[in-house]
């Protein structure tokens, strides 16, 4: 039993079978990568994990509890955080404010009317936010307007916002998509650091093999909505089925 167990999940969009009989088990404190060619169903699978989509059949269990039918914010409150393909941050707010919101969500839950208290009097939470920003080397940018930052910084901020909630499972949807090589390497270093410093399980969906092979403990290859193989990175590299899925039958 892993921290996340996906059993016999099927999802159809009209005539298209996006996922068929997907089984996946992610064990605690590992980095599990899901790779596959375009249209393999990676994003559909991820959306089934965070409550954006509901599978037609099958079950998704997180830490022994089903996530199916729960809203995204309820799933987050269970301990699953998500990083998007394009960084989703609060662009109108400063970096520090961006950090305070997940902390309030963690402390106060889905909704709480703190209309008279002042944000600046929340010393404990501010310190926590500053420590996290320091961990991702962004403390000097704490008063910056977050929309004006570079994409790499936005990605860092988004990860810091997820990590400050101390999630048990972090889902990353192509965290290096559209990034320059230098930014990609920075992100890999950051993720490696997170992996060694914290007790956290990560599930990464990725295109870039460089990223996958430098981070993953286990890899699942998805093709046409079905898992082809699941193994450690060394065995995936030369696997004939994987090459077939990526390069087509002719190769």
């Amino acid at each position, binding site marked *: 039993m892993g921290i996340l167990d996906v059993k016999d999940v099927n999802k159809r969009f009209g005539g298209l079978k996006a996922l068929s009989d997907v089984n996946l088990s992610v064990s605690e404190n590992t980095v599990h990568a899901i790779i596959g060619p375009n249209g393999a169903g990676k994003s559909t699978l991820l959306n089934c994990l965070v409550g954006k989509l509901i599978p037609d059949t099958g079950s998704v269990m997180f830490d022994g509890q089903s996530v199916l039918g729960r809203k995204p914010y309820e799933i*987050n409150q269970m301990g699953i955080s998500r990083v998007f393909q394009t960084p989703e*941050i*609060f662009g109108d707010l400063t970096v520090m404010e961006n950090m305070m*919101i997940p902390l*309030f969500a963690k402390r106060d839950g889905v909704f709480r009317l703190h209309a*008279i*208290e002042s944000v600046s009097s929340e010393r404990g939470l501010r310190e926590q936010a500053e420590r996290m920003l320091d961990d991702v080397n962004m403390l000097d940018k704490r008063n910056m307007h977050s929309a004006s930052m570079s994409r790499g910084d936005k990605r860092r901020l988004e990860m810091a916002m997820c990590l400050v909630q101390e999630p048990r499972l972090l889902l990353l949807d192509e965290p290096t998509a559209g990034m320059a090589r230098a930014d990609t390497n920075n992100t890999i270093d950051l993720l490696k650091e997170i992996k060694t410093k914290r007790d956290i399980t990560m599930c990464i969906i990725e295109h870039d093999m460089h990223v996958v092979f430098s981070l993953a403990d286990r890899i699942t290859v998805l093709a046409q909505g079905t898992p082809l193989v699941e193994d450690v990175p060394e065995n995936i590299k030369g696997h004939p089925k994987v090459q077939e899925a990526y390069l087509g039958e002719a190769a």
Partner: protein
Amino acid sequence: MLGLGKKDITLFAVVAVLALFAPFILNPFPAGSSLAQFNAGYPDLMQRFVIFGIFAIGFNILFGLTGYLSFGHAAFLGAGSYSAVWMFKLLSMNVIPAILLSMIVAGLFAVVIGYVSLRRSGIYFSILTLAFAQMSYNLAYSVLTPITNGETGLQVTLDDPRVLGQTATADGGIPVTNLFGLEMRHFTTLELGPWQFQFSVGYYLCAIIMLISFYLAIRIFRSPFGMMLRAVKSNQQRMFYTGLNARPYTLAAFVISGMYAGLAGGLMASMDPLAGAERMQWTASGEVVLMTILGGAGTLIGPVLGAGFIKYFENIFSKINDQILHGWVAWLPDGLEDLVVALIHPFVGKGWHLTLGLMFMLIVIFLPGGLVEGGQRIARSLRRRKSTDDGKSASTEPAE
């Protein structure tokens, strides 16, 4: 102090001074002079300034922070007015219970309208709120006549029970609204040479309530709740995946701003105890949108400035007629005088809407942040001029 930061205290102090000394500030011209018509320091108009200020402050909590543009806030204004007048009819002429009831009723209205309308965002939300407000307006005009007295409007009469007060005064008149005996319409005039300053009980009650509302708005803006509302405006997707439900936050903001509108409506009725359906009409909803955008949506002081600006125009510009214009340009040759008056004519008097419309267009195009942004730009350019002066004097010093 008061749980506010330094900047906010300054801002609050400025607004407090403006509000409390308004009878002086708004009456800069001697009573008999030809410019006296630009004086706005009479109780009736000053009350309108602050009451609409409250309305706009509340509206800004919703629109300025969450970005949800309600086009039906007049419904809460009207509901507040009707409830206040009913309180005057049934309970007593004291304004306190009337104001409290108007806030409660407007709040309940806001829960219902908000619960339905907030299922949608953007233009659909605006249309839903507009539909609700127009529905309320038409109902108040027709089927709800037993409650609203239809076209005539709801008034206090000599047959009202007023269980805690008196039905009629000793001399058989309708009693007037008061605060524990202090009559709202009572005022004293201070004469300093040719100047006249009027201090009215009603105005000061409104001003103090406006200051309390403004203070609460500052607290809301600086609170975790206020930050969540800005997060709603910024990125709802991220909010959902951060473990927060945006809906209760927007509903709370909607209800709070509806209660502000109800308070404004209750105060209106307290100053002049009658309520008509036209208070709920869409033009009234549109007016508060104009005030907020003109002053600067999302800023603290903007809505107050916008409300004052529009109400000043409405009451002062609209009074300039052809006769007055002729008086001003009488020194011109006859033909030219008529031409000048004819040219200015469409912009003043009944045409004041044209001037307001042009001002609004210019401000939205060139100062999207409203009057507040204008002020900031002026302050910045002054500062820059000062710093370049400093730079000049520095460059005259010998280098190294």
